[in-house]
Protein backbone atom coordinates (compact mmCIF):
# COMPACT_ATOMS: atom_id res chain seq x y z
CA UNK A 1 0.00 0.00 0.00
CA UNK A 2 2.87 2.33 0.87
CA UNK A 3 4.37 1.63 -2.58
CA UNK A 4 1.09 2.59 -4.19
CA UNK A 5 0.87 5.87 -2.26
CA UNK A 6 4.53 6.58 -3.03
CA UNK A 7 3.75 6.22 -6.76
CA UNK A 8 0.39 7.97 -6.79
CA UNK A 9 1.12 11.06 -4.68
CA UNK A 10 3.97 12.54 -6.80
CA UNK A 11 2.09 11.78 -10.06
CA UNK A 12 -1.31 13.03 -8.89
CA UNK A 13 -0.86 16.77 -9.67
CA UNK A 14 -0.03 15.99 -13.31
CA UNK A 15 -2.97 13.61 -13.72
CA UNK A 16 -5.37 16.04 -12.03
CA UNK A 17 -3.92 18.80 -14.22
CA UNK A 18 -4.42 16.77 -17.43
CA UNK A 19 -8.01 15.79 -16.63
CA UNK A 20 -8.78 19.26 -15.30
CA UNK A 21 -7.57 20.87 -18.53
CA UNK A 22 -9.63 18.47 -20.63
CA UNK A 23 -12.86 18.99 -18.67
CA UNK A 24 -12.43 22.76 -18.43
CA UNK A 25 -11.63 22.86 -22.17
CA UNK A 26 -14.61 20.75 -23.22
CA UNK A 27 -17.12 22.46 -20.93
CA UNK A 28 -15.71 25.90 -21.74
CA UNK A 29 -16.04 25.30 -25.47
CA UNK A 30 -19.68 24.17 -25.16
CA UNK A 31 -20.55 27.02 -22.78
CA UNK A 32 -19.01 29.70 -25.02
CA UNK A 33 -20.55 28.41 -28.26
CA UNK A 34 -24.03 28.01 -26.71
CA UNK A 35 -23.73 31.48 -25.19
CA UNK A 36 -22.86 33.03 -28.57
CA UNK A 37 -25.60 31.07 -30.37
CA UNK A 38 -28.14 32.25 -27.77
CA UNK A 39 -27.11 35.91 -28.21
CA UNK A 40 -27.21 35.64 -32.02
CA UNK A 41 -30.66 34.00 -31.96
CA UNK A 42 -31.99 36.76 -29.70
CA UNK A 43 -30.52 39.49 -31.90
CA UNK A 44 -31.92 37.80 -35.01
CA UNK A 45 -35.42 37.58 -33.48
CA UNK A 46 -35.38 41.29 -32.60
CA UNK A 47 -34.25 42.22 -36.09
CA UNK A 48 -36.80 39.98 -37.82
CA UNK A 49 -39.60 41.43 -35.69
CA UNK A 50 -38.50 44.95 -36.53
CA UNK A 51 -38.45 44.12 -40.25
CA UNK A 52 -41.94 42.62 -39.94
CA UNK A 53 -43.25 45.73 -38.15
CA UNK A 54 -41.71 47.93 -40.82
CA UNK A 55 -43.35 45.89 -43.59
CA UNK A 56 -46.78 46.18 -41.93
CA UNK A 57 -46.63 49.92 -41.34
Amino acid at each position, binding site marked *: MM*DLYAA*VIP*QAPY*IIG*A*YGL*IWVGLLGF*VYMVFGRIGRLEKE*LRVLEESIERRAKS
Partner: protein
Amino acid sequence: MKRNPLAEIMLGLGGLLTTAAFFMAFFWAPGTSYPDGRVDFAQKIFYFHVPVAEASFLVFIFTAFYGIRFLMTRERIYDTKARIATEVTLFFVLLTMATGILWTRVEWGVWWQWEPRLTTYFILTLLVIAYFVLRNSVEDEEKRAVYASAFGILAFIDAPISFFITRWLNSIHPIVFGGGESSGLETSMLITFIVAQVGMLMLGYAFYQLRLREEELRERLEALKIEIGD
Protein backbone atom coordinates in the same frame (compact mmCIF):
# COMPACT_ATOMS: atom_id res chain seq x y z
CA MET B 1 -32.70 28.98 -38.85
CA LYS B 2 -32.95 25.21 -38.32
CA ARG B 3 -31.33 23.50 -35.36
CA ASN B 4 -29.36 20.33 -35.89
CA PRO B 5 -30.86 17.64 -33.63
CA LEU B 6 -28.11 15.15 -34.56
CA ALA B 7 -25.45 17.55 -33.26
CA GLU B 8 -27.33 17.90 -29.97
CA ILE B 9 -27.72 14.11 -29.67
CA MET B 10 -24.01 13.67 -30.39
CA LEU B 11 -23.16 16.31 -27.79
CA GLY B 12 -25.27 14.56 -25.14
CA LEU B 13 -24.00 11.08 -26.01
CA GLY B 14 -20.41 12.28 -26.31
CA GLY B 15 -20.69 13.93 -22.89
CA LEU B 16 -22.12 10.73 -21.39
CA LEU B 17 -19.49 8.48 -22.94
CA THR B 18 -16.54 10.66 -21.96
CA THR B 19 -17.88 10.96 -18.40
CA ALA B 20 -18.34 7.18 -18.27
CA ALA B 21 -14.81 6.69 -19.62
CA PHE B 22 -13.45 9.00 -16.90
CA PHE B 23 -14.99 6.82 -14.17
CA MET B 24 -14.01 3.60 -15.97
CA ALA B 25 -10.40 4.81 -16.20
CA PHE B 26 -10.13 5.39 -12.46
CA PHE B 27 -12.43 2.74 -11.01
CA TRP B 28 -12.40 -0.15 -13.48
CA ALA B 29 -9.34 -0.22 -15.72
CA PRO B 30 -6.29 -1.40 -13.79
CA GLY B 31 -3.18 0.74 -13.52
CA THR B 32 -0.02 -0.46 -15.21
CA SER B 33 2.44 -2.08 -12.85
CA TYR B 34 5.99 -3.04 -13.74
CA PRO B 35 7.86 -6.24 -12.71
CA ASP B 36 9.92 -4.17 -10.25
CA GLY B 37 6.69 -3.29 -8.40
CA ARG B 38 6.55 0.28 -9.69
CA VAL B 39 2.98 1.49 -10.34
CA ASP B 40 2.36 3.71 -13.35
CA PHE B 41 -0.57 5.86 -12.29
CA ALA B 42 0.15 8.47 -14.99
CA GLN B 43 -0.97 5.92 -17.59
CA LYS B 44 -4.52 7.15 -16.77
CA ILE B 45 -3.76 10.24 -18.88
CA PHE B 46 -3.65 7.93 -21.91
CA TYR B 47 -7.45 7.39 -21.84
CA PHE B 48 -8.09 11.02 -22.77
CA HIS B 49 -4.79 12.09 -24.33
CA VAL B 50 -5.01 9.59 -27.20
CA PRO B 51 -8.72 10.24 -27.97
CA VAL B 52 -8.14 14.03 -28.24
CA ALA B 53 -5.08 13.41 -30.44
CA GLU B 54 -7.03 11.04 -32.74
CA ALA B 55 -9.90 13.55 -32.85
CA SER B 56 -7.45 16.28 -33.91
CA PHE B 57 -6.20 14.13 -36.80
CA LEU B 58 -9.70 13.13 -37.90
CA VAL B 59 -11.21 16.62 -37.76
CA PHE B 60 -8.21 17.96 -39.67
CA ILE B 61 -9.20 15.66 -42.58
CA PHE B 62 -12.22 17.95 -43.04
CA THR B 63 -9.96 20.99 -43.39
CA ALA B 64 -8.26 19.30 -46.34
CA PHE B 65 -11.51 17.86 -47.72
CA TYR B 66 -13.41 21.16 -47.69
CA GLY B 67 -10.28 22.94 -48.93
CA ILE B 68 -10.32 20.69 -52.00
CA ARG B 69 -14.07 21.19 -52.40
CA PHE B 70 -13.59 24.96 -52.25
CA LEU B 71 -10.82 24.96 -54.84
CA MET B 72 -13.00 22.83 -57.13
CA THR B 73 -16.23 24.81 -56.77
CA ARG B 74 -15.22 28.23 -55.34
CA GLU B 75 -18.33 28.10 -53.14
CA ARG B 76 -17.83 30.15 -49.96
CA ILE B 77 -19.56 27.64 -47.71
CA TYR B 78 -16.71 25.15 -48.18
CA ASP B 79 -14.18 27.74 -47.05
CA THR B 80 -16.32 28.41 -43.96
CA LYS B 81 -16.55 24.66 -43.26
CA ALA B 82 -12.77 24.25 -43.67
CA ARG B 83 -12.15 27.17 -41.29
CA ILE B 84 -14.48 25.73 -38.65
CA ALA B 85 -12.88 22.27 -38.99
CA THR B 86 -9.48 23.89 -38.42
CA GLU B 87 -10.79 25.74 -35.36
CA VAL B 88 -12.01 22.46 -33.84
CA THR B 89 -8.68 20.86 -34.83
CA LEU B 90 -6.81 23.62 -33.00
CA PHE B 91 -8.92 23.04 -29.91
CA PHE B 92 -8.06 19.32 -29.88
CA VAL B 93 -4.41 19.98 -30.78
CA LEU B 94 -4.01 22.28 -27.77
CA LEU B 95 -5.60 19.70 -25.45
CA THR B 96 -3.32 17.01 -26.90
CA MET B 97 -0.22 19.14 -26.37
CA ALA B 98 -1.19 20.09 -22.82
CA THR B 99 -2.03 16.55 -21.68
CA GLY B 100 0.99 15.15 -23.55
CA ILE B 101 3.39 17.54 -21.86
CA LEU B 102 2.02 16.58 -18.43
CA TRP B 103 2.38 12.87 -19.25
CA THR B 104 5.91 13.40 -20.57
CA ARG B 105 6.91 15.18 -17.36
CA VAL B 106 5.78 12.22 -15.25
CA GLU B 107 7.01 9.40 -17.47
CA TRP B 108 10.21 10.80 -18.95
CA GLY B 109 11.06 13.33 -16.25
CA VAL B 110 11.19 16.20 -18.74
CA TRP B 111 8.58 18.63 -20.06
CA TRP B 112 9.62 18.12 -23.69
CA GLN B 113 11.64 15.72 -25.78
CA TRP B 114 12.58 16.31 -29.43
CA GLU B 115 11.67 12.83 -30.58
CA PRO B 116 9.81 12.04 -33.85
CA ARG B 117 6.17 11.98 -32.63
CA LEU B 118 6.45 15.08 -30.46
CA THR B 119 8.39 16.98 -33.10
CA THR B 120 5.96 16.21 -35.95
CA TYR B 121 2.98 16.98 -33.72
CA PHE B 122 4.59 20.26 -32.68
CA ILE B 123 4.97 21.08 -36.41
CA LEU B 124 1.27 20.23 -36.83
CA THR B 125 0.40 22.65 -34.01
CA LEU B 126 2.42 25.41 -35.68
CA LEU B 127 0.77 24.68 -39.05
CA VAL B 128 -2.72 24.89 -37.57
CA ILE B 129 -1.86 28.21 -35.90
CA ALA B 130 -0.25 29.42 -39.15
CA TYR B 131 -3.51 28.67 -40.98
CA PHE B 132 -5.24 31.37 -38.92
CA VAL B 133 -2.30 33.76 -39.18
CA LEU B 134 -2.52 33.39 -42.96
CA ARG B 135 -6.27 33.99 -42.95
CA ASN B 136 -5.88 37.14 -40.89
CA SER B 137 -3.12 38.49 -43.09
CA VAL B 138 -5.06 38.43 -46.37
CA GLU B 139 -7.77 41.06 -46.77
CA ASP B 140 -9.28 40.02 -50.09
CA GLU B 141 -11.97 37.43 -49.29
CA GLU B 142 -11.51 35.35 -52.46
CA LYS B 143 -7.69 35.26 -52.19
CA ARG B 144 -7.90 34.49 -48.47
CA ALA B 145 -10.13 31.49 -49.14
CA VAL B 146 -7.87 30.20 -51.95
CA TYR B 147 -4.65 30.58 -49.94
CA ALA B 148 -6.20 29.09 -46.80
CA SER B 149 -7.60 26.12 -48.73
CA ALA B 150 -4.25 25.39 -50.37
CA PHE B 151 -2.43 25.82 -47.05
CA GLY B 152 -4.94 23.59 -45.23
CA ILE B 153 -4.46 20.81 -47.78
CA LEU B 154 -0.65 21.02 -47.54
CA ALA B 155 -0.70 21.28 -43.74
CA PHE B 156 -2.80 18.14 -43.51
CA ILE B 157 0.09 16.11 -45.00
CA ASP B 158 1.78 16.34 -41.59
CA ALA B 159 -1.13 14.55 -39.84
CA PRO B 160 -0.53 11.03 -41.26
CA ILE B 161 3.23 11.60 -40.96
CA SER B 162 2.82 12.42 -37.26
CA PHE B 163 0.51 9.43 -36.78
CA PHE B 164 2.74 6.84 -38.47
CA ILE B 165 6.19 8.25 -37.63
CA THR B 166 6.57 6.13 -34.48
CA ARG B 167 6.20 3.05 -36.69
CA TRP B 168 8.75 4.28 -39.26
CA LEU B 169 11.51 5.70 -37.04
CA ASN B 170 12.97 4.83 -33.68
CA SER B 171 10.89 6.67 -31.13
CA ILE B 172 10.55 6.57 -27.36
CA HIS B 173 6.87 7.50 -27.68
CA PRO B 174 4.73 4.48 -26.79
CA ILE B 175 3.00 2.59 -29.63
CA VAL B 176 -0.14 1.18 -28.07
CA PHE B 177 -1.61 -0.53 -31.12
CA GLY B 178 0.27 -2.45 -33.80
CA GLY B 179 3.65 -1.86 -32.22
CA GLY B 180 4.76 -5.48 -31.85
CA GLU B 181 4.52 -7.91 -28.96
CA SER B 182 4.86 -5.32 -26.22
CA SER B 183 1.94 -3.24 -27.53
CA GLY B 184 -1.78 -3.80 -26.94
CA LEU B 185 -4.13 -3.38 -24.01
CA GLU B 186 -5.97 -5.74 -21.75
CA THR B 187 -9.75 -5.94 -22.25
CA SER B 188 -10.92 -3.51 -19.54
CA MET B 189 -8.31 -0.95 -20.63
CA LEU B 190 -9.26 -1.36 -24.28
CA ILE B 191 -13.00 -0.95 -23.58
CA THR B 192 -12.32 2.19 -21.52
CA PHE B 193 -10.20 3.58 -24.32
CA ILE B 194 -12.84 2.82 -26.98
CA VAL B 195 -15.60 4.47 -24.89
CA ALA B 196 -13.43 7.60 -24.48
CA GLN B 197 -12.47 7.60 -28.16
CA VAL B 198 -16.04 7.22 -29.47
CA GLY B 199 -17.25 9.87 -27.01
CA MET B 200 -14.52 12.29 -28.06
CA LEU B 201 -15.30 11.83 -31.76
CA MET B 202 -18.99 12.48 -31.03
CA LEU B 203 -18.01 15.67 -29.21
CA GLY B 204 -15.78 16.63 -32.15
CA TYR B 205 -18.71 16.25 -34.54
CA ALA B 206 -21.02 18.19 -32.21
CA PHE B 207 -18.49 21.02 -31.76
CA TYR B 208 -18.07 21.32 -35.51
CA GLN B 209 -21.85 21.43 -36.10
CA LEU B 210 -22.45 23.92 -33.28
CA ARG B 211 -19.77 26.27 -34.64
CA LEU B 212 -21.25 25.91 -38.12
CA ARG B 213 -24.69 26.86 -36.77
CA GLU B 214 -23.14 29.89 -35.06
CA GLU B 215 -21.56 30.98 -38.36
CA GLU B 216 -24.86 30.52 -40.23
CA LEU B 217 -26.67 32.64 -37.65
CA ARG B 218 -23.98 35.33 -37.87
CA GLU B 219 -24.19 35.42 -41.67
CA ARG B 220 -28.02 35.63 -41.56
CA LEU B 221 -27.76 38.49 -39.05
CA GLU B 222 -25.27 40.37 -41.24
CA ALA B 223 -27.56 39.90 -44.25
CA LEU B 224 -30.55 41.27 -42.33
CA LYS B 225 -28.54 44.26 -41.10
CA ILE B 226 -27.60 45.07 -44.69
CA GLU B 227 -31.26 44.65 -45.71
CA ILE B 228 -32.38 47.11 -43.01
CA GLY B 229 -29.58 49.48 -43.94
CA ASP B 230 -30.87 49.55 -47.54
